[in-house]
């Protein structure tokens, strides 16, 4: 990434016609400007904020929550009283989706942030140092990749009972998927490290950590962001599987993934149980994806908006 800073021309140069006014713009503002030009990303950001609002603020406003309420009728299709219908036990699905979105967002975003950060650092270090460091770190990644998630989950579920927080679920899922990011980042770093700016950076006396943080990772932003968005999608479904097996979010508390799992047999017979949470999952994934696109464009000036 080019560190370009424009400086104002000194007042010694008198220009007869228009004075050209340039402002010093930091990299951050440049990035922000680029992001804002990406209309879809902005729109997605708005939608995501609406979803967050729906989940957190809506649940304070909406009369029904996600728990069983005796007065609520069983298994009715969407109506004015219950826009998303009700479940067999007598829960209002809209209340459930609100609560579910809260929990899923918390888990998914935490997973994405932790796993991507950790994985990116791991992969960058491995890629930069090569040699035995790379070997060791990647072999550890291999070990984790080889063990199937289900085994880990069954073991955990078999020993930890109910009442675990969403934090614990997020950690377990993140611990499993950071390996993906690390492999991708390592790949990018392997080719990046041969480029001149790395050499130049070293020549100027940068420490390794500076190289990693200031140069390598930002240049690998593309794949990292993709990995992050995929992590969100994966986390929602993985959390559902874990909760289903008894670890993590348990009834009466709910998450989008859990709602979908419970509505497993219902997509064609009682679609209101399945599609509202499903829609929200897709919405979250898509908006985060497009925001990611925008971020990528914003951070990488070579990716312009110019249509070809």
């Amino acid at each position, binding site marked *: 990434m080019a560190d370009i800073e424009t400086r104002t021309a000194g007042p010694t140069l008198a220009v007869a016609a228009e004075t050209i006014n340039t402002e010093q713009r930091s990299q951050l503002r440049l990035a922000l400007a680029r992001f804002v030009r990406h209309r879809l990303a902005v729109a997605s950001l708005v939608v995501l904020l609406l979803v967050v609002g729906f989940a957190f603020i809506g649940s304070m406003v909406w009369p029904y929550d996600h*728990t*069983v*309420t*005796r007065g609520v009728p*069983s*298994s009715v299709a969407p109506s004015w009283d219950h826009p998303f219908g009700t*479940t*067999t*036990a*007598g*829960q209002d699905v809209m209340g459930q989706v609100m609560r579910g979105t809260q929990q899923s967002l918390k888990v998914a975003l935490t997973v994405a942030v932790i796993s991507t950060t950790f994985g990116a650092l791991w992969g960058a270090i491995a890629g930069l140092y090569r040699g035995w460091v790379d070997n060791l770190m990647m072999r550890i990644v291999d070990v984790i990749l080889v063990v199937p998630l289900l085994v880990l989950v069954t073991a955990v579920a078999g020993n930890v*009972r*109910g*009442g675990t927080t969403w934090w614990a679920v997020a950690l377990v899922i993140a611990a499993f998927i950071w390996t993906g990011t690390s492999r991708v980042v390592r790949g990018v770093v392997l080719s990046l490290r041969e480029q001149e700016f790395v050499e130049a950076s070293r020549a100027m006396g940068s420490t390794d950590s500076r190289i990693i943080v200031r140069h390598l990772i930002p240049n690998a932003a593309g794949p990292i962001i993709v990995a992050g968005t995929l992590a969100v999608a994966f986390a929602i479904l993985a959390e559902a599987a874990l909760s*289903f*097996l*008894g670890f993590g979010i*348990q*009834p*009466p508390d709910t998450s989008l993934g859990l709602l979908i799992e*419970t509505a*497993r*047999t*219902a997509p*064609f*017979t*009682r679609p209101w149980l399945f599609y509202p949470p499903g829609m929200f999952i897709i919405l979250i994934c898509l908006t985060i994806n497009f925001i990611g696109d925008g971020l990528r464009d914003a951070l990488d000036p070579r990716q312009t908006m110019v249509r070809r």
Partner: protein
Amino acid sequence: MNPRRRLTRPTRWPVVAVALAAALAFSACAGDDPGDAVGQPGFDDCAENPNTCNSGERDDGGSITWLVVSKPTGWNAYSPEGGSVYTLQMLHGIYPHTGMFAPDRETYLFNMDLFAAEPELLSEDPQSWQYVLRDEAVWDDGTPISADDFVVSWKLGTSPEQGHCDGCRSRATAPYDRVESIEGSADGKTVTVTMKEGEYDPEWFGFLNVDSIAGGLMPAHVAEQNGFDVDDPVQLGGYFEWLQANMPTFSGGPYRIVEGDFENQVIKEPNENWYGEIDPTLETYIIRVIDDQGAWVPALANDEIHGGAPIQLNEDVVSGIRELPNVYSHIHPGPSWEHIDFNIDVPAFQDVELRRAIFTAIDVDDIASRNFGEMFPDYTLRTNHVFSADSPYHVDHVTETGQGSGDTEAALAILENAGYELDGTTLTLDGEQVGPFRLRATADQARVTSMELIQSYLAEVGIEIIIETTDDLGGMLGEQDYDIAQFGWSGSPLFVGTAAQQWMTGSGSNFGNYSNPEVDRLVTQELTATTQDEAAEIANQAMEVLVQDAYVLPMYDSPVFIFASDGYVNVRDNTGESVRGVYNNHEWGTAVQ
């Protein structure tokens, strides 16, 4: 769970004889080839005529594929790994058996294809009875079915200490260990079973019936053919393993297995040497194993399966099936009933008032109506721990106590009188919170719904409930790893002895460790009752005490359903037998167009 039930004594005899006569008369009326049958197609009149609904005239030929909902794990149903109701369902139709209950759950039908005359009790002390086999009864290779087969079937089920079999790993040895000897007449066609001194089995007529450990008789001649000398305990053990490993291609029933493996499908064809009255008309009869509920409806729509009788009732699966044209389906009370039990060893639950209050706060009718009220409005709530509502011995013990009514006011009243206080939204005793309690059950939809509802009911009286599903019910119950549990008992028309098994101090199925000397006295007395009426009377007395102690809250008879394509006749459910719909598979046939 299949608690053993006992029936008493000879005075049951006349009842059975009459029932038999009625059954025979009935089947005679229904016709040899149920062509001039009474029933209409479809399951609509199964409530009134459970034994004859969906009958019709059979066309020749055709093929049917029947659903089994879980994978059997071996061919030998004696073994712990092979022995499950799914193995029995898969293999029904190849073993000769001694009898079964009819779909009305009252009539017991001896297998008169096998017997020349009804089995008779010869003596009571020591107990012995006799079977007389028909000369025509043969295995598929022509070998006569004889006493040798009874001997082998018995020995395979015994435990190693008995000395009959070294290496047999029977999963239920008690019924067989109590047998002293089985002898045959010279021609092998008269079989006498003698029990050991002091042993009495009132359920003697169920010996080696369709619900027995392997669903019928194992062949002795196949052992000989494969080099096992059945008189040598070690070689008999070898035969046990051989049966486990090898798909049975022999048959003493209407069908014969021609190909298959127990994970995918088993293909059966009619047994040419079938000696019974009614011959199968189908050319092929396939059992298909599909353990994912979501896969049934598309498979049915796609003509890959034609019928099934699952245990689990799933609202969406039922709706899906009902939407398909050309498929009959029917929901009815099943053989098992749901209930909620306390773990009495939990300190808080030693106060009977708390238990009563909790049961009073639970609204069983609400749970039932939400779970299946839509699909099955005629559901019955269970108010007796032993007898279902249609039994002559049924007495409603529960309703008057208010347990299961969901009356929160009444529950709170009980709690207040007992010294509890509702502090805001939390129930306290002497300032300390009561609970939270772990409510556990398996993870199927109906149970999870039920637990969520219970959680809400108890929240109204200030008790916090933590829901924890389990995938190992047996382990959970055996280790008492629960505070409150919901599960089902599977029922059978025979009842004597259940009470002792479930409520006697220290008994194997008394998971919550309930103990009451009065109940102990009564249930022990029940075991020695001389008539069924007497046993029922005592059982009801025990239940009075039990209900006051609020240890078990009966909920409802779990409904089950059966579905079948309309291209077939004589397919119907039999909730008196664990094999369910396949109980009469030799009577099935394609419908005449």
